[in-house]
């Protein structure tokens, strides 16, 4: 196992992960509106305060006149007058007309530097009658300015700062799929040739894969607590993930139970092939046909619905490669251990 190339790819995986950690935690989040108070409005004049997270959308001494806030009801726009703009907050006066197309109001905050910030269902007007907004209350859509935010992660409602978990959770599952696929191929080869060298590979792959599966479950559980409000929810994707990890733990238990039996390689391979087929069914087939909270349920149960933007891609792809290479490194370590143990035992 000598040679420069070995240390190059191993060092690169660590360097990539270091880059991912540095970039992932230091990149600011794009500004996004999180709340409007008061959220229940009546038919009179209100002072509306909007709060934002992420990067500041305005400078410390910004002029309120450079900004524009409009509320949308149905397909019509309601005018407001901004009185004060802070880095993370905006205050506006708004008069509510007696007729509105819809009682739910969406807020659009037009900024000169940070683009347009949107908050869906910002407030509700309980006692408005259904009808058009009178012309004196209406607003014209202002011109949108292109955002000048620099390198920053996109803001997603509910997910907010936790979008950084994308660089951990998703690549860990990818790494698990990759190494379990390797184990599957090794087990097929084991069944074909009945040779111990493939069994050593399959064992190493599953053992590494279980570690990454557990990491994926842990990071996923943390993420679920943050975005869905519970450590665990009943969801096809989550059930599949848990069953997969339990299944592969079963593989390790079966090996332990077989002990010194000379058929351990073949029986473990049989179980592993079965387990991988179940993994594909549970994580890639079933979630696509049933209701799921997990993103990407139509099509790829990974990350399609996150519409990765370029800044996130610049960190996400290195993360995938880095975790994958680290996982493969772990696998080779275990494999070499297995080989040495085997050659010592069969002496």
């Amino acid at each position: 196992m000598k040679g420069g190339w070995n240390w190059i790819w191993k060092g690169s995986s660590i360097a990539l992960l270091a880059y991912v950690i540095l970039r992932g935690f230091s990149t600011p989040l794009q500004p996004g509106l999180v709340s409007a108070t008061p959220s229940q409005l009546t038919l009179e004049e209100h002072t509306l305060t909007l709060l934002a997270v992420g990067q500041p959308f305005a400078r410390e001494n910004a002029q309120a006149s450079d900004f524009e806030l409009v509320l949308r009801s149905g397909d019509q726009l309601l005018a407001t007058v901004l009185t004060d703009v802070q880095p993370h907050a905006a205050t506006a006066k708004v008069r509510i007309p007696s007729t509105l197309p819809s009682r739910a109001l969406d807020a659009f905050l037009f900024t000169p530097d940070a683009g347009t910030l949107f908050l869906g269902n910002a407030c509700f007007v309980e006692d408005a009658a259904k009808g058009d907004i009178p012309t004196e209350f209406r607003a014209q859509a202002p011109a949108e300015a292109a955002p000048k935010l620099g390198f920053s992660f996109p803001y997603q409602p509910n997910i907010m700062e936790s979008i950084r978990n994308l660089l951990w959770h998703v690549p860990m599952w990818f790494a698990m799929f990759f190494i379990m696929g390797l184990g599957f191929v090794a087990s097929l080869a084991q069944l074909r040739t009945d040779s111990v060298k493939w069994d050593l590979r399959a064992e190493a792959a599953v053992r590494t894969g279980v570690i990454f599966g557990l990491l994926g479950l842990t990071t996923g559980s943390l993420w679920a607590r943050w975005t869905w409000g519970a450590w665990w929810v009943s969801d096809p994707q989550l059930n599949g993930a848990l069953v997969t990890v339990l299944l592969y733990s079963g593989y390790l238990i079966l090996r332990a139970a077989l002990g010194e039996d000379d058929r351990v390689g073949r029986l473990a391979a049989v179980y592993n092939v079965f387990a991988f087929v179940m993994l594909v069914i549970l994580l890639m087939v079933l979630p696509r046909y049933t209701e799921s909270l997990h993103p990407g349920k139509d099509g790829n149960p990974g990350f399609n619905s996150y519409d990765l933007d370029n800044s996130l891609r610049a960190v996400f792809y290195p993360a995938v490669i880095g975790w994958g290479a680290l996982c493969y490194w772990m696998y080779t370590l275990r494999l070499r251990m297995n080989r040495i143990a085997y050659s010592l035992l069969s002496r």
Partner: protein
Amino acid sequence: MHALLLLNSLEGFFFGSGKAHVVTGVALTILAGLAFAMWRMDRRLSRLEEENANPPS
């Protein structure tokens, strides 16, 4: 800042108090520790492989 901290503890915490650097530091330390452990294991295995004349490939 205070309003944000009340509104949403993680958001306020993350960029409000500069604790993101601590998180980065801890994560990098763990990564460095892991890399060192794996590197040492790799070296040790190489030595064992040499001692162990001819392991099955």
